[in-house]
C-alpha cells in the first residue's frame, strides 16, 4: 500500500499529483483530503460525502493510521475509556473484572460498527450516572501517577544539565590556570635575575605538578549535587521503587597464565625439510608454480610442497600393528587366557 489510501474519494487527487495531500478522517470513519474538507465547510454544508451523516469541522482529525476505520475506532476507544476507567483493584474477583472489560469492548464495537447505537448510548449514560464517583477517583489517581512520572523525568533532566555545566566549568578553570601560569613565567623571565633556562625548567615542573593535582581536585569536587534519595531514617523518597541492587560481580580466580608451547609432530618417518627452507633447497623447481589468482588468495607453492613431503616422509618407519577392534579384542582374550593359565 503506497501512502495512505492515496486517493481522496471526493476529488480523486492522488499523492502523485499533490504530494502534500493529507487525509483527514471524520467521526463516521471516512477520509477526505484537507482541501475537500475546507471546501465542504466553506459551502456551509456539513454532510459526509459517503454516508451523509452530519459533521462538524472539529470532528476532523488528521489521519494517523492507514485504514480510516482504525482511526475511527481509536477515537471512539479514547472517548469511551475516559468514562470507563475502572481498574482491576476495583473488582473483587477476576471474573467480574473480565466481565467489565467485555462489556466495554462490546460498547466500543457497537459504536464503531453502528450496531444498535441507541441502546448502546443508553447503556453508556446509565453507567456514567451509576459510577460517577468511582470514575472521578480513578481520574484523580491517574493524574497523580502522571505527575510523579513527570517529576522523575524532570529530576533526570536536572541531573544531566548540572553535569554538563560542571564540565564546562572545569574546562574554564583549566584555561584560567594555564593562563595564570604562563603569565607567571613571563613575569619571572622579565624581572628575576636567575638563569632563563632554570626558570623555564622550574616552570615546567610546576605545570606538571599542577596537572597531576587537577584530576584529584575534580574528583573531590564530585560532580553535581546528587539529590538525596533517602530520609535519614532510611525510608526512601519518591514512590517508584526502581532501585535494583546489582549482585556483586563474581571474583575471577587467578588462573595460571597461558603459555604457548609449539606443537610437536611425530612423523614416524624421516623428518621432512621445514617449510621455510624449501625454497633454498630448490624444491620449487619441481612443483607447479602458483598462478596469480592463487597467490592473491594466500597460496604459495611452499604449502603444497611441504604437505606432499610431509605425507611422503610420514609413516615410512611404520611397523604393522593391530589397531583394529577385532584384533585388539582377540589379543585381549589371549592375554586373559595366559593369565588364567
Amino acid at each position, binding site marked *: 500500500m503506497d501512502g495512505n489510501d492515496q486517493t481522496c474519494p471526493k476529488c480523486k487527487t492522488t499523492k502523485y499529483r499533490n504530494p502534500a495531500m493529507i487525509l483527514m478522517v471524520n467521526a463516521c470513519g471516512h477520509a477526505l483530503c484537507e482541501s475537500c474538507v475546507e471546501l465542504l465547510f466553506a459551502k456551509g454544508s456539513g454532510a459526509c460525502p459517503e454516508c451523509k451523516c452530519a459533521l462538524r469541522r472539529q470532528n476532523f482529525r488528521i489521519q494517523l493510521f492507514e485504514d480510516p476505520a482504525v482511526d475511527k475506532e481509536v477515537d471512539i476507544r479514547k472517548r469511551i475509556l475516559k468514562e470507563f476507567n475502572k481498574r482491576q483493584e476495583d473488582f473483587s474477583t477476576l471474573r467480574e473484572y473480565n466481565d467489565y472489560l467485555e462489556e466495554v469492548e462490546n460498547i466500543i464495537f457497537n459504536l464503531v460498527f453502528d450496531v444498535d447505537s441507541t441502546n448502546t448510548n443508553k447503556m453508556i449514560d446509565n453507567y456514567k450516572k451509576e459510577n460517577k464517583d468511582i470514575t472521578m477517583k480513578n481520574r484523580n489517581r491517574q493524574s497523580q501517577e502522571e505527575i510523579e512520572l513527570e517529576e522523575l523525568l524532570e529530576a533526570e533532566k536536572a541531573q544531566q544539565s548540572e553535569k554538563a555545566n560542571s564540565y564546562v566549568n572545569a574546562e574554564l578553570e583549566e584555561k584560567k590556570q594555564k593562563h595564570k601560569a604562563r603569565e607567571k613565567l613571563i613575569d619571572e623571565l622579565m624581572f628575576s635575575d636567575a638563569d632563563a633556562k632554570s626558570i623555564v625548567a622550574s616552570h615546567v615542573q610546576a605545570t606538571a605538578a599542577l596537572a597531576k593535582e587537577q584530576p584529584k581536585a575534580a574528583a573531590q569536587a564530585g560532580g553535581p549535587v546528587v539529590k538525596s534519595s533517602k530520609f535519614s531514617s532510611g525510608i526512601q523518597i519518591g514512590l517508584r521503587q526502581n532501585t535494583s541492587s546489582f549482585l556483586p560481580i563474581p571474583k575471577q580466580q587467578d588462573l595460571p597464565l597461558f603459555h604457548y608451547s609449539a606443537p610437536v*609432530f*611425530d*612423523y*614416524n*618417518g*624421516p623428518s*621432512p625439510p621445514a617449510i621455510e627452507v624449501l625454497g633454498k*633447497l*630448490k*624444491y620449487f*623447481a*619441481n*612443483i607447479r608454480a602458483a598462478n596469480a589468482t592463487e597467490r592473491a588468495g594466500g597460496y604459495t607453492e611452499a604449502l603444497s*610442497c611441504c*604437505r*606432499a*613431503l*610431509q*605425507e*611422503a*616422509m*610420514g*609413516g*615410512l*618407519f*611404520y*611397523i*604393522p*600393528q*593391530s*589397531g*583394529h*577392534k*577385532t*584384533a585388539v579384542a*582377540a589379543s585381549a582374550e589371549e592375554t586373559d587366557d595366559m593369565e588364567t593359565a
Partner: protein
Amino acid sequence: MFATSTQRSFWMFKDENDVSNARLSANIKYISSRGRNMTAEERELQFLNVTEEKILIMSYEYQLRDFCRKFLPPMPRYVIGTALHYLKRFYVNNSVMDYPPKEILVTCVYLACKVEEFNVSMDQFVGNLKGDREKAASIILNNELLLMQQLDYQLTVHNPFRPLEGLMIDMKTRFPTFSDPERLRSGIDEFLEQVFYTDAILIYSPSQISLAAIIHSASTSKENVDEYITKILFSEDQKRLLNLIEAVKKIRVMVRNVQTPHRDVIKALEKKLQLCCNTDNNSESPAFKKRMKQSFDDEESFEDGQYPSADSDQVRSMLMGMSEMGKI
C-alpha cells in the same frame, strides 16, 4: 597426517593373517546365527566360506573400479581409492552374505565422493547407473548411514597418491642423478591400481606403499633407486631401513599374487550367494518389502500429517517398482 590418523589407530592390521581372522570371525558369526540347526556339511554347502567371500569381494572391487572409470564427470583416483578403502573396511567386519555388496558398492562410492569433496549431486550420480534411478537413489540413501556406522564414523582415508607425489618431488630435488623419474609413472600407476585389490592398504602405511610402487616400477625398467633410499631418505636411521625393506618386499609379493577371479567362478558364487544371503537387508526380497511397508504404516499411525501420507496402494506400487536392481 597418517601417523595421527584414525586410519592408523583403528583400521590397521598386523599382517594378512590378522585380516583373514577378522573376516573369518564375521563369517562365522553370520553362519552361526543363520544356520543354527545344520550340520557342518550342510553349512558348507549352504553358506559361503571365507575364501569364497574373498573372491567375491575382489570381483566387486573390480566392478567398483569399472564403475568409477566410466563415471562422468571423471573421477580422480583418490576418490576411487577412498571408495575401495571403505568397501574393504566394511567387509572386514561384516559378511558378504549379510549385506548385498552391490548396494554397499554404490554407497561407498557416493560417500567417498562426499568425503573427498568431489561434488556430485545425487542426480548426477545415479545418472551414471543403469536401471531404475530413483530406486538406486533410495538404496544409496538408505545404506549411507549403515555404511558410516560400520566404519565407526572414521571416514578420513589416507591414500598413497599424495605421498607418491611427495616422493617424486623429493627424488627430483635431492637425487638428481636419477634422470627424469617421470618415466616410472606408468609402472607406478599400474602398481598402485593393483595394490588396492590386496590387503596391503590395511597393513602398511600409504607412504610405504608408494615407495614400494616406485621401487617396483624402477626394477621393471631395470633401474635402481636404492641409492636414493639408503643415502638420502634413511641416511640417519639404518635399522629402520631393514624394516622398510621388509615391508616393501611383502607389498610387492602381495601385488604379484593378485589374481583376477575367473568369470565362471564368480557366477557360481553369486548364485550361491543369492540362496544364502540375508533377505532382510536385500532390497529385492519380499521380507524386506514387508518390513519397509510396516515401517511406513507404523509412521502413519504415530504422526498425523507430518509424514507425506502414503496410502497402502502407493506404498505397494513403490515397492513393486523396486523389482530389478542388478543392472549397475
